[in-house]
């Protein structure tokens, strides 16, 4: 997968001065900085607001409430099966906005580059960001670049922030989960985390695993078109499904119960978890959402999700309960139950 990326295939629209790698001067605010913007970022992200190259982008937003979010991306390796840091940076912020029911519209991108990074690698990352932005229907309208000394960064760090407008009548937030509501997950869990782990540690788990990195705003739009009884949306990224369900339980002071047997866990993720002593509910996703929906509308929402390509394997996994507020409980395969807490720090592979 990674071998298939050909950095030599990327060519600068107008050749940058003869630097194949990022040098400190690219962050110096002088000619090198300007060239990077004009020849690398601006052509890739091309739009009217960015092309004005002002100190700030000037935007027009339709009336309504504004959703506004920011996220930083420090993933290692930069390229992984199913995506790279650029695609992740765009989809991450798009998804944060979509989880409030907002229609994401504009993004900004801040780059912290490590001295010595191949310009062609940056080029591929930026092209991927542009492609992800097109796919999500958003524009990248402002940006910033800084360069740090070699050894002080992992190639590229990217921060994105974004704004979107929340349609009239949409009120989606964790506090709205109420007893009786149904919990739906939009598809197979654990893919992103296992994809990263497999390349980072050189482990194989049967079939190759690709990250599920994807923009969820289209899926959310389809769900909102089907029903307005969606109370909570959340994308289970770091900390996995367990962290997301715990956040909902704590924010709304409700309990969450799910059935382990109903979790959509792909075989390769299950195999990785067996091998390393980890639990799929703690593994990161980058293209999945959890929806908490009023029970009478659950089937309608589920149907709408399943008609969308990113929700084809959506499944009802559990429900919100008035019992044990703040606590998430799993019903185990053999009929027992256990508390599923947030994990402390990183999930560590067990010794045996």
């Amino acid at each position, binding site marked *: 997968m990674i071998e298939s990326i050909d950095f030599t295939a990327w060519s600068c629209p107008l050749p940058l001065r003869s630097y194949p790698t990022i040098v400190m001067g690219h962050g110096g605010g002088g000619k090198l900085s300007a060239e990077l913007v004009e020849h690398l970022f601006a052509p890739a992200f091309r739009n009217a607001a960015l092309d004005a190259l002002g100190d700030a982008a000037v935007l027009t937003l339709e009336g309504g409430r504004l959703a506004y979010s920011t996220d930083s991306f420090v993933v290692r390796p930069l390229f992984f099966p199913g995506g790279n840091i650029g695609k992740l940076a765009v989809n991450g912020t798009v998804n944060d906005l979509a989880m409030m029911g907002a229609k994401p519209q504009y993004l900004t991108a801040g780059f912290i580059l490590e001295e010595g990074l191949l310009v062609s690698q940056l080029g591929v990352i930026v092209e991927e960001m542009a492609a992800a932005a097109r796919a999500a229907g958003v524009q990248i309208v402002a940006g910033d670049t800084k360069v740090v000394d070699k050894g002080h960064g992992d190639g590229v760090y990217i921060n994105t922030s974004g704004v979107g407008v929340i349609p009239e009548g949409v009120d989606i937030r964790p506090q709205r989960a109420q007893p009786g509501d149904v919990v739906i997950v939009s598809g197979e869990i654990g893919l992103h985390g296992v994809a990263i782990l497999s390349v980072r540690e050189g482990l194989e788990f049967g079939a190759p695993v690709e990250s599920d990195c994807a923009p969820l705003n289209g899926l959310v739009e389809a769900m909102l078109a089907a029903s307005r009884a969606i109370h909570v949306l959340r994308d289970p990224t770091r900390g996995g499904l367990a962290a997301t369900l715990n956040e909902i339980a704590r924010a709304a002071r409700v309990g969450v119960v799910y059935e382990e047997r109903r979790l959509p866990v792909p075989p390769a993720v299950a195999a990785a978890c067996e091998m390393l002593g980890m639990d799929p509910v703690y593994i990161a996703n980058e293209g999945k959402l959890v929806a908490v929906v009023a029970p009478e509308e659950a089937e309608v929402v589920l149907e709408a999700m399943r008609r969308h390509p990113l929700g084809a394997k959506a499944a009802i996994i559990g429900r919100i309960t008035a019992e044990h507020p703040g606590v998430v409980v799993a019903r185990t395969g053999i009929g027992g139950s256990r508390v599923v807490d947030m994990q*402390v720090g990183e999930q560590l592979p067990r010794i045996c």
Partner: protein
Amino acid sequence: MVKYLDEFRNPEIAQRLFDEIRRMTTRPWAIMEVCGGQTHSIIRNGIDQLLPPEIELIHGPGCPVCVTPLETIDKALKIAAQPGVIFCSFGDMLRVPGSEKDLFRVKSEGADVRIVYSPLDAVKLAQANPEREVVFFAIGFETTAPANAMAVYQAKQLGLRNFSMLVSHVLVPPAIAAIMESPATRVQAFLAAGHVCTVMGYWEYEPLVERYHVPIVVTGFEPLDVLEGIRRAVAQLEKGEARLENAYPRAVRREGNTAAQKMLADVFEVTDRAWRGIGVIPRSGWRLSERYRDFDAEARFAVANIRTQESPLCRSGEVLQGLLKPNQCPAFGKECTPRTPLGATMVSSEGACAAYYQYGRFVQVEETTVAPSV
């Protein structure tokens, strides 16, 4: 592999086993599962909640992370902090508290601490970094020992001078003997650790059954394996029998893995070993044999004379001996949580305290069910 595992998680068969155990139980029995992997499986699947109230499962000292002595942890921290060292460890050792800090803290202070998935990865690191000293933290029971032995063996074959191991291996049979010798013990039967027996066989346990007249059932790790082990132990107890039974025949033979045992006998030799929270158990550990002493990290790095300091609040020793349930410890969930562990039993997911904290904190969840409409 996963499909295969589903067979050992079948809810209908589990129900039948629960029913049978319930039917045959006429009075209270205390059964110790020796291995941390079994503790993990019991709590994770909620097996303990579904057993009849007469059956008490006592969680044994079989979590290698938990019983690694504080002194060894402190030695690891000292070695890891030395310039030029790449210190390799299994993941769950990194958060185990030493006297003052843990490996994560040493790493954040600039030490090169790496999580490896196999000791052979550490050998590869040593080959790739000839100018660095690569140290592998070799802990565990008989289960992890063959791979660790293989790592030293390979390092010797390759003539690697920059590879060494900090060894703190522990052995199950002497621990069972120590538990049975303790006047405070309440254990009436043992579930022996299936994976340990895969390597060592179960002939070593036959004298223990004789000497202490205690049933020992070699048991696996999947929910149905654990239930079958419990069923057989209860059946023996109810009949007043004490036999050795193998409830894990798909992985365990009486003689074990003789090729692995041969390698172990070459690389390691039996030694007295301190168990964290329990104390020294005679002839209960392995250290590198004379032939491989050059690879001993304790000798290579000057880490003798370490003064250790356990938390005065931590009662993990009683937990490890089955004298105290984790949630009966006054510090449980208060001063001591997975975020701020006072003892190793709160760190590893196989540690009884961590397992209780993660999965079993709220006993009232038993009644909760997902509505059939879902």
